């Protein structure tokens, strides 16, 4: 009998801080502000937090840094750092710890000041056998995946550009999105080439920002201020670390994380109303739509064409503007959860997907290495 998170716990609070640029603030300042707002949203005090789930790009022992800053004494701490998918992965450990009675109020949080602190960085432990060839990680690895997808399936640069343009059109509906000026396919194609076939505008933003979510067991979540958003299924999978070891550059471990998450949630891709995917690069969205079962392998390029995933299209993806146009402070996964909660609560304003009941969040970590998929739903879906 497999344990499933379905219906056992719910997200009762969300918080953001420093989206865009927050000069002078440390990553912990921003993390703490997001946690404060998420707890306020839930109507829970900081003292009640007894489960902490966090990772960041600065502290090797992130739970210690965040615990000290917040002045809390968690009895459960998970600091697993698998890259940008970590917070979607943390959802399953938070749900499990809550269900087991190991903690009562779980906080998942992340913050980064990478934009104002001097730009994006990758962890220094680059693979020994890759370093002599000077790959520009992470972009070169995603470029290799994009090139292979184009070669194998005829995916075009215009189709990849459509992902960036769709994200921008969503961002234009989101007042806190960082990049909101108009963007065309030609703008993406003619922007500076970074690693062929990816241009600057095929790549995510480099921003500051923090996010936090608060979870409780389902029975207590009914008493909170906000409509609870239930965890229906979460799963993670990983295949490799360096891109040369990825078994097939056109197929990610999202095939496995997605299938398991759907099975645990007793749902299928056609049940999903809104999709939030980790779009570090335009190719990610194409790969994940295929691997999560929304279209066939190789058809992701044509799937995203003609505005299908943009506002007004039939298949809303990355409704906050994504990492490409809303916010990307290094590890984006937490923001997929926060936007999904906004959509399911019905509080997403101009970008609201009408009647959204079930959302899929997908986090990606490393070099298409770690994949985590979560399905969230309104109380009616449990």
């Amino acid at each position: 009998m497999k344990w499933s998170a379905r219906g056992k716990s719910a997200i009762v609070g969300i918080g953001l801080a420093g989206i865009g640029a927050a000069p002078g603030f440390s990553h912990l300042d921003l993390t703490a502000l997001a946690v404060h707002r998420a707890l306020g949203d839930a109507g829970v005090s900081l003292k009640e937090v007894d489960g902490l789930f966090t990772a960041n790009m600065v502290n090797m022992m992130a739970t210690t840094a965040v615990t000290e800053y917040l002045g809390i004494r968690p009895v459960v701490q998970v600091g697993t750092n698998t890259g940008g998918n970590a917070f979607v992965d943390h959802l399953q450990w938070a749900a499990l710890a809550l269900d087991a009675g190991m903690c009562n109020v779980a906080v998942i949080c992340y913050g980064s000041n990478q934009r104002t602190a001097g730009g994006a960085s990758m962890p220094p432990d680059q693979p020994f056998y890759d370093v002599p060839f000077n790959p520009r990680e992470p972009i070169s690895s995603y470029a290799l995946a994009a090139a292979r997808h184009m070669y194998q399936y005829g995916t075009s640069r215009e189709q990849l550009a459509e992902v960036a343009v769709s994200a921008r059109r969503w961002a234009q509906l989101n007042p806190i999105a960082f990049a909101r000026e108009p963007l065309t396919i030609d703008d993406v194609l003619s922007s500076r080439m970074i690693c062929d076939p990816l241009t600057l505008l095929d790549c995510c933003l480099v921003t500051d920002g923090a996010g936090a979510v608060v979870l409780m067991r389902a029975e207590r979540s009914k008493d909170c201020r906000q409509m609870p958003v239930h965890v229906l299924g979460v799963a993670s999978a990983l295949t490799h670390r360096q891109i040369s070891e990825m078994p097939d550059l056109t197929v990610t471990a999202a095939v496995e994380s997605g299938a398991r998450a759907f099975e645990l949630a007793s749902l299928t891709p056609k049940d999903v109303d809104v999709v939030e995917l980790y779009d570090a690069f335009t190719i990610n969205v194409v790969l994940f739509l295929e691997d999560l079962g929304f279209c066939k392998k190789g058809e992701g390029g044509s799937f995203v064409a003609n505005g299908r995933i943009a506002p007004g299209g039939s298949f809303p993806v990355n409704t906050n503007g994504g990492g490409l146009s809303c916010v990307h402070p290094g590890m984006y996964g937490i923001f997929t959860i926060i936007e999904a909660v906004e959509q399911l609560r019905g509080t997403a304003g101009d970008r609201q997907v009408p009647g959204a009941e079930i959302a899929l969040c997908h986090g990606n970590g490393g070099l298409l290495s770690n994949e985590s998929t979560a399905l969230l739903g309104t109380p009616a879906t449990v």
Partner: protein
Amino acid sequence: MNEIHGEESPDTTLRRFLDGGEIRLQTCADCGLQIFPPRVLCPRCGRLELDWSLVAGNGTVYSTTVVRRRVDRGGDYNVCIVELDEGARMLTRVNDVEPTSVQIGDRVQAVIDSVDDRPVLAFVRKSEVGS
């Protein structure tokens, strides 16, 4: 329980062969998997018994990119993944051609190159070596 397996580390062995002008990679004595980067065990079946087999060095470009760099910092360069005919893949580069001319599917030949005094496996295009 505390013995080190073999006389030298896998990386030391690879480097010793490359320094001697020989391309040898590990092959699992049990399942036959060609292994790169070198390891103490087979990542498919877990065996410690790995043979250092002579490699012909024939391969195919599996994917490729051009890392764009300002001319005053050295200009654009190729980064690619080559799959050897025996199966192993590695991050590498194709030498002596325009970086933009490297194509997926190009047949390539391994050469022992040097980066910062360390021997590395790079590749040249088959047509460039006349085979």
